[in-house]
Structures are given as structure tokens and as C-alpha cells.
């Protein structure tokens, strides 16, 4: 089967210069993000932000599990940590993760949003504010509408929006909510998402 991946081209016809990728998900997304991380090259050119619903009181284990098969380092950032290309930043347990000015992470203990801390909406909204049209937002499988509004903000700011194909999702609610709210750029299978990410420069 011929793989065809579409990516926004600038007028010069070059692959548009994105500055960050953000991925959100909850139930059923662990296998998907593991597969994505294992397929990325060690020299992945952008910082990757990961926001997944997780148990509030379990601080360890998640980042270790994601690291096992990942080619790029996966870490739970400290507050005001500088975002760097080729690293994946996982929102720590019981904190919201924001993108702050000057390409830094900011953590927060604000109230839950959509019953969630970390909230995918807050991570996506702040990333969209920081990166505007230079952001790729991806929503994966999940059992909650968190992330739908955040993805809309990515879209409204001119960023590229991708939703995992609900037919492939273990739990469809998160992707379907996102699709209801936003006319997204792509509805992709995991393999197509990987192909998209591999084209980034």
C-alpha cells in the first residue's frame, strides 16, 4: 500500500518549521504512545510534550515504562525547565503542565479540569498560546472529553491538528469529542501518525 502523508507546506514548498509536538490521551493510549516513541529517531528534531491521565498518588513507574522502548529520553520535567529538541516531557502526577514563556515548562497545582490533573486541555491551550501555528497537537484514545477544547485552541491558532482514528481506539470518547469540536487536519492511524512525525525537520 502506498503511504501518503500530507503536511502543511509553506509557500516556498518546504516542510513547515514546527517547533513542538504535543500528544494527549487517557485510557487505551499507553500502547499507542509507546509505539510512537519507539519509532522516533534518537535525533527527533522537536521537543515533544506528553499529557496523559494518570493516578494522582502514583508518582513513579509511568515515565520508566514509557522509557523502556523509547528512542528519545522521556522525562518528567521540573518547573521552569527549558524545553529541548529530541526529548519527551511527560506531565508529572498531580500537576498540570503548561508551556510558559521563553520555551519553558511551568507546573501548576490548579484545580482539576475535566476531573483531571494533569489536564490535557490546559497543556494544549498553553502550548497553543506559546507556539501558535508552529505546534502539532495530537489526541489519542481516551475515556473523557478532556483535550477536545485544547485541540480546538491549537486549530484556532493555526497549528496542525491530528486525531487518532476512533476505529482504532480502545476507547473512543476522547477522539470523538475532539472531532465534534474541531474540523481537524487529519484523522490518522498510529502508523500514519508515526509517518507524519518522521517527516518533521
Amino acid at each position: 500500500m502506498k503511504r501518503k502523508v500530507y503536511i502543511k507546506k509553506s509557500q516556498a514548498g518546504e516542510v513547515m518549521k514546527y517547533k513542538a509536538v504535543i500528544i494527549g490521551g487517557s485510557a487505551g493510549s499507553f500502547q499507542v504512545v509507546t509505539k510512537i516513541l519507539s519509532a522516533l529517531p534518537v535525533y527527533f528534531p522537536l521537543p515533544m510534550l506528553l499529557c496523559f491521565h494518570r493516578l494522582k498518588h502514583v508518582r513513579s513507574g509511568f515515565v520508566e515504562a514509557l522509557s523502556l522502548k523509547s528512542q528519545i529520553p522521556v522525562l518528567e520535567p521540573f518547573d521552569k525547565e527549558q524545553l529541548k529538541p529530541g526529548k519527551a516531557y511527560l506531565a508529572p502526577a498531580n500537576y498540570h503542565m503548561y508551556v510558559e514563556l521563553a520555551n519553558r515548562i511551568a507546573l501548576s497545582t490548579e484545580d482539576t479540569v475535566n476531573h483531571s490533573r494533569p489536564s490535557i486541555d490546559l497543556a494544549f491551550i498553553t502550548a497553543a498560546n506559546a507556539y501558535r501555528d508552529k505546534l502539532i497537537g495530537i489526541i489519542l484514545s481516551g475515556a473523557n472529553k478532556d483535550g477536545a477544547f485544547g485541540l480546538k485552541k491549537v486549530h484556532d491558532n493555526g497549528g496542525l491538528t491530528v486525531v487518532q482514528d476512533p476505529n482504532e481506539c480502545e476507547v473512543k470518547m476522547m477522539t470523538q469529542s475532539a472531532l465534534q469540536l474541531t474540523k481537524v487536519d487529519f484523522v490518522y492511524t498510529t502508523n500514519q501518525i508515526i509517518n507524519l512525525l518522521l517527516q518533521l525537520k
Partner: protein
Amino acid sequence: MNELGIIHIKEIERTIKSMHEYDFSGYAMTSFKYRLERLMMKYNIQEPEHLIKKIQDEPDFFDNFLFDISIPSTEMFRDPSLWRWLREEYFTESIGKNPGKFKIWLPLCVSGGELYSLAILLSELELLEQVQIIATSISATSIDIIKTGQYDLKKIAVSEENYNRANGIKELSTYYTIDRYYAYLDTSLIKNVEFNKVNIIFDHSPQNVKLILFRNSLIYYNPSLQESILGLLHSSLSAGGHLIVGIKEINSFRDFEIVNEAESVYKKKPGR
């Protein structure tokens, strides 16, 4: 509601600074903006100009502002493993050794969650009489609420789970009553606590403090204010005094050594 622009936020900061002794310019932009937007929603303020006018014209509103801009702790006994460590290792070892009152400072109280957690723990260790707790807040409203014991009902369930995971020796429900809207914590726990209102940079901070509990507040500052507040906390501690911050707040800092890395417990280096 419209999103606040940076220009509006800076204007709000300037207005506050010119009228009151509070300088929010060192607050981290993203969370401060989010908090301002929430506050405007709560008071049904549509335009930033109206918020500025309200701050200028209504002196009573400003304490509400200080209350609403502050972010309360998420729950009681957050990070149960820290509280377990305090219970089983830290307090029994450190308080026993010290003649006189053991001074503990909570610099930025908002909802009282940390304060009551601490008081419950010390009371169960029968050490409450041996400590002097100083609780400061930027908001008089916060202090009033904490003194009544009023606490967010929807945080009680998770607090209860945390208390049990932290090896609390009773039931958390021993310490509160509830009505339809709130939990009311047992105020006898805090009867000896000294409360003070402070500004953002903690003028007149207490001295010779043995333990500072300052968790998940530094995250609301930008790096340069973080640095200066840490310097100030350092000077408040007695030699060998301990500082506990939030789990993911600070990677490392000079003038402190790590005592418990997993729980973010630091110790002032001797001779500094």
C-alpha cells in the same frame, strides 16, 4: 470570555503595584494569566479595564483579589509518602533533640490544607505542644477562613485516602464535621498557631526557623523571584534547618543539601 493579553496583565500588575505593596511582576505569566481570567469570571468582569478600575476604586475588593489570585493546596496530606517520612523519621528524631520550642514556618497559606495536615500529624505524635507554628498568608481572607476551619468538601475524599496512606493512626473524620457545603476542621488543632499577613516578598520573615514547609508555591514565580524567595527562606532557617518544597519544583539549589530526594527535603548547609 476574551483571553487576557500580556499588555493587560502588565497593566494590572502596574496598577496593583502603584496602589498596594504587592508586586506581582515576578509571578509566572501562564498561571497568573489563568488565575486572573478565573477571577474575572468569578466576579463577572468582562474587560480588563473594569478589573483595573475595581482595584483602583474598591479598597475592599483588593483582599478578595489577593485571596482569589492565590492557589490553594490541592488536598490534605498531598504526597502521603512525605507525611509518612515526617511521621516515622523526621519529627521524632529532630524535635526530641531540641530543647525549647521547635519553630515551623508555613510561608504561604491559602486554604489551610497543609497547616491542618501538619497539626494533625504533630498532634498524633503528641508533639503539638513542643512546636511553634507560624502561618503567613498574603490574604487576610485566607487567614480568616483557615481560623474557622472551613475546608473544601470535594477535597475530603482524596485527603482521607492520603491520610490513610500516610499511616494516620485514626480516621481523618475524627478531625472534621461537615454540613451541606463545607467541611469544618477542628480548630483546636491550630489554637497555638501564630498568623501573620505578609506581602509577596515576606517582609519581616521569622528567624531561627527549624522547618519551612513551602510546597508548590515556588512554581507560581518566575526564575528570578524563585531565586530571591529561596534566598530569603534560607536566611530564615537556623543552621541545619530544613526546607520542604514540592516534588517537581526545584531541581537543585546551592546553599542547601538534599536530605530526601524523593520527597524534596533540603537542609541548610552549616556555616552559610
